């Protein structure tokens, strides 16, 4: 197993596009080669070694490579974008697009993640211990959001804190678990997969959803009128994970002839029926 440590040298004013920070790219490279990888800082190219102090050594394959980012990386974007295997540990905050389009492996963020974390993710695990921004597990314009790499192989995003607006937009498969609250439009345009929110949700959850499941254990401020009430269930089970209700069940979004399901904890959402 190889381990590469990246310690930010300074905090620049301009964000850095660092999709090269990925086990797929580090694997099999010497420290020198890793240091010579190019990143964009605004419209200028920089070498990775000008941004980070680099130590350790990389494994032979992506699966055998762990990357540790020591310190605040909130100015560094696209870490782990498109990675297929291996691990990245970020010991602080991280910039936008972390783990976007991941196809395997694991990313752990100990601080907060900025917008677009895990956007278009297809497999792997993204674990954010702080808060996440907007478009968590969402989609890039024109594309679908989280989807499956193949049948039964999909990505999982876990957020310990809160997440912003449009969580899981255009999601087709996969799982997003948020321990805190979410903003507006969670699961907008969703066609499959699961979103579980343990905290509260702002308005317009599931707008234009066609399929998939959203579970809200906290309070939903306002429900779209295009969801139909289908009665109560006592428990919901997703991937073997049981959540005890009773839950109010809604199906929608009928504006799209949708067949998505909303489970809202009855105890907190009596105001909706």
């Amino acid at each position: 197993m190889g381990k590469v440590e990246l310690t930010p040298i300074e905090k620049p004013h301009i964000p850095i596009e660092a999709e090269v920070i990925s086990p797929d790219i580090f694997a099999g490279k010497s420290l020198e080669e890793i240091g010579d990888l190019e990143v964009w800082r605004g419209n200028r190219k920089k070498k990775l070694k000008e941004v980070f102090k680099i130590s350790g050594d990389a494994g032979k394959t992506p699966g055998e490579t762990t990357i540790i980012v020591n310190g605040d990386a909130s100015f560094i974007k696209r870490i782990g974008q498109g990675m297929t295997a291996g691990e990245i540990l970020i010991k602080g905050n991280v910039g936008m697009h972390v783990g976007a389009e991941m196809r395997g492996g694991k990313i752990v963020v100990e601080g907060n993640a900025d917008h677009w974390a895990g956007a278009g993710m297809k497999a792997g695990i993204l674990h954010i211990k702080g808060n996440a921004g907007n478009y968590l597990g969402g989609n890039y314009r024109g594309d679908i959001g989280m989807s499956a790499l193949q049948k039964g192989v999909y990505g999982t995003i876990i957020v310990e804190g809160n997440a912003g607006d449009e969580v899981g937009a255009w999601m087709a498969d996969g799982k997003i678990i948020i321990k805190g609250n979410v903003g507006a439009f969670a699961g907008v345009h969703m066609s499959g997969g699961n979103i579980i929110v343990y905290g509260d949700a702002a308005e317009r959850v599931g707008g234009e959803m066609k399929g998939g499941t959203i579970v809200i254990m906290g309070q939903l401020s306002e429900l779209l009128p295009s969801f139909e009430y289908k009665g109560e269930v006592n428990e919901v089970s997703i991937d073997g994970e049981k959540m005890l209700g009773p839950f109010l069940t809604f199906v929608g979004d009928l504006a799209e002839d949708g067949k998505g399901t909303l489970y809202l904890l009855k105890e907190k959402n009596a105001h909706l029926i």
Partner: protein
Amino acid sequence: MNAYVLKGGHVYDPLNNIDGEKMDIYIAGGKIVEEPPKGAKVIDVSGKVVMPGGICIHSHIAGGKVNSGRMLRPEDHRRDNIPKKGQLRSGVGYTVPTTFVTGYRFAAMGYTTVFEPAVPPLKARHTHEEFQDTPILDHGGFVLTGNNWFVLNYVKNNEMDKLAAFIAWLLWATKCYAVKIVNPGGVESWGWGKNVNGLDDKVPYFDVTPREIVTALSYVNEKLGLPHTIHVHGNNLGQPGNYEITLETMEAVREIKASKGRRSVLHFTHIQFNAYAGTSWKDFASGAQEIANYVNKHDHVTIDIGQVIFGDATTMTADGPWEFALRQITRGNKWVNSDVELETGSGIVPYVFRRTVPVNAVQWAIGLELMLSVNDLYKVCLTTDHPNGGPFYFYPKIISWLVSRKARNEELEKVHKAAIEKTTLKDLDKEYNLYEVAIVTRAAQAKILGLKDRGHLGPGAKGDVAVYDIDPTKVNLSSSPELVEKAFSAAAYTFKDGEIVVKDGEVIATPQGSTIWVKVKKLEEMMPLIEEDLKEMWKHYTISLNNYPVQMEYLPKSEMVEV
């Protein structure tokens, strides 16, 4: 202006019967000249292939529909970014590239003239604006007529003189080069929620049939003596079994007399999409041999292919009802469908051609089948109906399939077995030589389009020349298709109007291309015939008649062809 001597290349100039002869080409004053010009720069092109600049008869590169396609597909652009480089602009691909990238990529393949085959008259100004922003390439548009209310009315009342006057006026007003017909009658029917399925189905209200529309426009086209024939996208495009209506359409115009200088009266475009046998998607098969047979027996039709390329495509056509059907087939893919007032319609649906899908595999094979089965190559043009069958920058790939049976068979092994079972591709052993490649990519296109000063390298022709880095005396095309693809992807030199615009596959200059369009000499005499009708019908238009014609300001480099 610079003068050049291209020294010692292997020249392929089919229109002048030059087949790989080692000879020098002289360029001066933007044109090919007979004698070595004084003070010319000598460029050694020995061991390389020299051809006239490539011509594409059918690529959707400019106009409202193309631009809507760009807006519809942000994901398409994200996967293909082209950064700014020196004097070149930044841009994006993939299936619907930006105007600048379109110009650069065509030029890098040695192409110098490209036609936009679907200009709704009302959107002609937009098309010309995008032409201006498409560097290097000479360009022209085909104006959509097959569902225009004027046309339908004149056909209904059998007023051929008025129809001729209207077509002449429309070509002038839109500054277009040829008459395009898309799903004749069908697009107007779509305005009523219907389509036409047979050549003798009636269009609601107008009570005319596709057969009448096509024959009338073909007749008028020849009467006016336009350089290109009518350019037809047939009825029932994309439907299983449609090869029959394709043949019927060709047969319908057989008796029409061609104007001076050519024998054809109809160009059937992207015929791959109209060459299907079978009765449903389940027994979908190739009708390519039936089509090729007909084309081999008759001289009044020409075709281009619309070859399918596996991967992403963006279908865009004036055929609104077909795009609706395709949207249903793709189970609700995002789409655009629009009506252009009294003139035409259009639709856009993204599509992916997959090797594993039987229908797609057969579609892929049909294009090649046709290219390999038509005997007289002056009747056939290489196209992908960009971006409908696939992006235009796959032409080199297609050329590699044409010159090498080995390359075709390698691809055949990768695709669904339907391509072997339902088509004759596996049995076709024809392999193109470079002379034949030059015909289907330049000479035939120039001849079919009626372009006199390009597509060949005779004295007086435009100084549009492509040089490819492949030595026909050393390379066996059939066994090294990858070298052919590489050479045609990145021209060693592309000359546009006698200046170097591409060197070693890199664009180094971006001159403005000219707009080729047709003016009928007798237009002024004919105008009184239709002036009243124009005023009367214009009550229904959203813009005034005075603001309708495209002004010459939109053609910074106009190349008018008078007939």
